[in-house]
C-alpha cells in the first residue's frame, strides 16, 4: 500500500514538474494591448521629451546602449548591454569607458546600425546643437567627450569620476537614432519613428493609438515574444479600468489608484495580478520666477507653507497614486532627508497652524493678501487633478484664491516650456534611483533646460558641482542637505508627495517586472502572453 502511494506521489510529481517548467517558459506569439494614461505627448523624440506618454508609445521601437537588467529592474547597479557587446571596465582612473557595439544590427528601414549612429545619438543627447532640446543634457555634465574611433567602438571620456555616470547612461530615454536621419534634420525624430528595437512601427495615430509589429531582425535571440502590440491613449481612468475589466486591454504600465486596483481585484479575482512598488516620482509645484508676484521669495514660500503634506499624503493615498512625503531625494535612499530633517523645511513643518500663520504673515508683508492666479495642471486624473484640487483647498486656508487651468499633456508642456504660466503642477519622475543624477532636475535653467521655474542660482550650481564628483556617501549626504536647504530657502520649487505604483494586469501577461520607475523596462521585448 505504502509503495503504491509512494509511486502515485512520484508519478504526480513527475507529471507536475514539466507542467510547472512549461508554465514559466515564454510562449511566442500573441498581441498585447495596453493603455497609456495620457492623451499623447508634444513630440515623438525621446531625447527631447520627459513624459511617459511619449516613452510608453515609443520605447518598443528603439535600442539603447546599456539598460538596467530587465529581469532585475529595481536594481540601482545591475546594468546590462543592449547594443554593446559586454559591459566594459573603466580605465584605471575611471575616466574612460570604451563600449564595443554589436555588429549586424539593422534599423527598421534595413540600414545597418554602427557606432557612428550611436555616436550621433549621444552627441545629440550630451551636447545638442543650438535650437535642439535635450531633456537629459544636464545629466551628462561629467562627460568631456564622446568619440567613435571605428564602426564598432564608442568611447566616453569623463571630466571626473562619479557614481552617476552609468545610471545616467542606462536612462531608457537615450534612444539610438540613425545618423543619416539626424544629419538630414535634427528635428526629424520629433515627428517620425525609426529605431532598431524589438518592434517595428505599424501605425501611429497621434493621441489615439500606436501599433507595433515584431522586428524579425531583432538582435536578442528569440525576442520579442509578442507578434505585436497596440497602445491606446486614454487619459480618463474609468476608460482604462473598463478596458482592463472587459479584457479589451491587458494593462497599463503606469499605475492605478487603490480604488481601481481594489475594484479590478474584486471583480476579476485571479484573472488579474497586481505588482506594486515605491515610485521615484512625485508632483512638483513650480512657480514661474519670471512672473510677478512669484519673483518674490516670500510669496513662493507662503504657497509652500500653506500645504499640510503630512496629513495630505496620508489621506490622498486612499484615493490617489500618492503615498510618501519627501523632498528632492527618493525617500528610503541613503541620501534622502530623515523625517526630522524634512520637518525643518518650509512646506514640511509638523505644526501646520504655525506654518499657515507664517504664510499669511509673508503674504501680508509682500502685499499679496488677496493673491489670485491660475494653477496650470495636466489633464491626467492620477494624481495631477487630485493633487491640484487638494492644493487649491490648502491655499484657500491662507486666503489665496487659485483656480485650475487644466490642459492636455502637449499644451501643458508647451506652456511650461514657453514660460506661459504663473504656477504649474508638474512632476519629477526619474528612472533608476540615483539621487546624485536625479537632483539635476532641480538645477536652474542654465544647467537644466527642463527646469521651467525660470530662476538662476549660482549657489545651487556651486553645491551641485561639488556633489556630482563626490564618491564618499557621508560627504555626499551633507552636500545633498545643503542643496535641499538652498532650494527650500529660496522656495524655488516644492516636491509634493512621492507617488506609489500599483499596476494591475491580466494574469496572462508574463515576463514584465515592476520597478520604482514607469520609464524602465518598457521595450516589451521580454513580455509574453500565457494564453
Amino acid at each position, binding site marked *: 500500500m505504502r509503495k503504491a502511494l509512494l509511486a502515485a506521489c512520484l508519478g504526480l510529481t513527475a507529471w507536475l514538474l514539466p507542467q510547472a517548467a512549461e508554465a514559466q517558459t515564454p510562449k511566442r506569439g500573441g498581441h498585447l494591448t495596453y493603455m497609456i494614461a495620457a492623451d499623447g505627448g508634444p513630440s515623438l523624440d525621446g531625447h527631447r521629451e520627459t513624459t511617459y506618454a511619449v516613452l510608453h508609445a515609443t520605447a518598443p521601437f528603439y535600442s539603447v546602449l546599456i539598460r538596467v537588467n530587465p529581469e532585475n529592474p529595481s536594481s540601482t547597479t545591475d546594468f546590462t548591454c543592449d547594443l554593446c557587446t559586454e559591459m566594459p571596465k573603466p580605465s584605471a582612473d575611471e575616466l574612460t569607458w570604451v563600449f564595443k557595439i554589436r555588429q549586424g544590427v539593422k534599423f527598421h528601414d534595413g540600414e545597418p546600425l554602427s557606432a557612428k549612429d550611436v555616436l550621433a545619438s549621444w552627441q545629440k543627447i550630451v551636447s545638442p546643437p543650438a535650437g535642439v532640446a535635450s531633456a537629459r543634457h544636464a545629466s551628462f555634465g561629467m562627460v568631456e567627450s564622446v568619440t567613435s574611433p571605428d564602426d564598432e567602438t564608442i568611447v566616453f571620456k569623463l571630466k571626473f569620476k562619479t557614481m552617476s555616470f552609468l545610471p545616467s547612461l542606462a536612462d531608457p530615454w537615450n534612444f539610438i537614432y540613425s545618423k543619416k536621419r539626424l544629419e538630414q534634420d535634427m528635428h526629424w525624430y520629433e515627428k517620425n519613428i525609426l529605431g532598431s528595437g524589438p518592434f517595428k512601427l505599424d501605425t501611429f495615430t497621434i493621441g489615439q493609438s500606436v501599433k507595433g509589429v515584431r522586428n524579425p531582425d531583432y538582435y536578442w535571440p528569440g525576442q520579442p515574444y509578442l507578434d505585436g502590440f497596440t497602445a491606446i491613449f486614454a487619459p*480618463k481612468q*474609468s476608460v482604462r479600468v473598463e478596458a482592463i475589466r472587459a479584457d479589451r486591454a491587458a494593462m497599463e504600465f503606469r499605475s492605478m*489608484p487603490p480604488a481601481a486596483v481594489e475594484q479590478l481585484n474584486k471583480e476579476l479575482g485571479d484573472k488579474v495580478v497586481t505588482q506594486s512598488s515605491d515610485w521615484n516620482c512625485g508632483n512638483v509645484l513650480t512657480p514661474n520666477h519670471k512672473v510677478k508676484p512669484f519673483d518674490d521669495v516670500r510669496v513662493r514660500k507662503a504657497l509652500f507653507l500653506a500645504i499640510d503634506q503630512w*496629513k495630505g499624503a496620508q489621506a490622498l493615498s486612499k484615493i490617489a497614486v500618492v503615498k510618501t512625503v519627501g523632498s528632492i531625494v527618493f525617500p528610503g535612499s541613503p541620501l534622502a532627508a530623515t523625517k526630522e530633517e524634512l520637518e525643518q523645511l518650509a512646506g514640511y513643518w509638523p505644526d501646520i497652524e504655525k506654518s499657515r500663520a507664517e504664510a499669511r504673515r509673508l503674504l501680508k508683508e509682500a502685499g499679496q493678501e488677496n493673491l489670485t492666479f491660475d494653477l496650470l495642471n495636466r489633464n491626467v486624473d492620477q494624481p495631477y*487633478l487630485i493633487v491640484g484640487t487638494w492644493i487649491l*483647498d490648502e491655499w484657500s486656508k491662507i486666503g489665496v484664491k487659485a*483656480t*485650475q487651468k*487644466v490642459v492636455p499633456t502637449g499644451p501643458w508642456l508647451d506652456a511650461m516650456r514657453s514660460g506661459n504660466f504663473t504656477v504649474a503642477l508638474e512632476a519629477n519622475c526619474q528612472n533608476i534611483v540615483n539621487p546624485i543624477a536625479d537632483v539635476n532636475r532641480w538645477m536652474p535653467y542654465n544647467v537644466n533646460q527642463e527646469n521651467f521655474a525660470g530662476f538662476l542660482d549660482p549657489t545651487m550650481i556651486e553645491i551641485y558641482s561639488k556633489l556630482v564628483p563626490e564618491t564618499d556617501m557621508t560627504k555626499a549626504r551633507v552636500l545633498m542637505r545643503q542643496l535641499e536647504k538652498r532650494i527650500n530657502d529660496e522656495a524655488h520649487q516644492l516636491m509634493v508627495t512621492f507617488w506609489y505604483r500599483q499596476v494591475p494586469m491580466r494574469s496572462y501577461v508574463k515576463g514584465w517586472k515592476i520597478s520604482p520607475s514607469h520609464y524602465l523596462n518598457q521595450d516589451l521585448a521580454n513580455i509574453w502572453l500565457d494564453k
Partner: protein
Amino acid sequence: MSTTVPTMGLPAAVDASLALRPTVWMRCLRFVRREPLGTFGLALVIVMAVTGSMAELIAPYNPTANDFSAMTEAPSWAHLLGTDQFGRDLLSRLIYGARTAMIVGLSSALVGGVIGLVLGVGSAYFGGLIDLVMQRIFDIVMAFPLIILALAVVSIFGTGVQNVIIAITIPLIPRCARVVRSSALAIREIPYVDAARACGFSHSRIILRHMVPNVMAPFLIMITASVGQAVLAEASLSYLGLGVQEPVPAWGLMLQGGAEEYASTAPWIAIFPGLAIMLSVLGVNLFGDAMRDTLDPKMRNR
C-alpha cells in the same frame, strides 16, 4: 357735478370686455390649471434658481472645503447626500452647482437668444443678399451638433466659466435666429411695417420697435428650450473635463472622476448630480413646452 369718462366711441360690449381683462394673477392661475406639467417644471426651475442664488444661506458646508475625516461617507444626518472622495459635502456642492448651471444656462440662452433675435429679425427684414449670406452662415454653424461646436470653441478659448458660456452661446445663436426669422418673415409682409417705412422710420426703429415685439412669443419659447440645452451642454463639457474645473462646484464635473471611480463603492457621488441635471433639464423643458402651448394661438384653443 358728474364726470363722464370718454369711451372713444367704443361699443358698450367691448368696453365691458376690457373691464374684465384678466389680471396677472388670473393668468397665472389659468396657467397652473391648464398646464400642470408646465407648473411642475416651473416649480423645479424656481427651486433651482432660489437654491442657486441663495447658496451661501442654504448650503450647510463650504462646497470646496476638503474634509479628510469624512471621505466617501454615505448619506447621514451630518451629510444628507453623503460626501465625495475629498470629503466635500455633496448637498452643498449640488446647491452651489445649481448656481453654476443657472449662470451658464441663463447667460448662454439669453445672450445667444438676444443675438439670434436681432440677427433673425434683421435677416428677415432686409432680405435679399443679406438674408442669403446670413442663412448660409447659420447653415454652416448648424451643421455641427451643439456639443461638437461647443467642444471646438472651448478648445480654442480654453476652459473656465466664461469660456463655457461663450462656447455654448455661439451654437445657440443660429438656432434662435432661424426660428425668429420665420416669424419675422410673416410680420414683414403686414401693412404696418410698410406704413412705418412710408413714415420714414429708420431700419433700427422698425426692427426694434415694430418687428421684435411681435416675435416675442417664439423668442421666449426658444429661450426656455435653450436654457435646458445650455445646462445639459455645460454638464457635458464639464464631464469631459473641458468645462469648469475643480474645485468649482458644477454638476457635470461632479459626475466626472470620483463618480466614475467610486460608482460601485460610493454610488451617491454619481446619483445625486445625475438627478440634479435630469430634474433641472426636465423642469426647463416642461416649462418651455407649457409656454409654447400658452403663447401659441394655434395651441391656445385646444
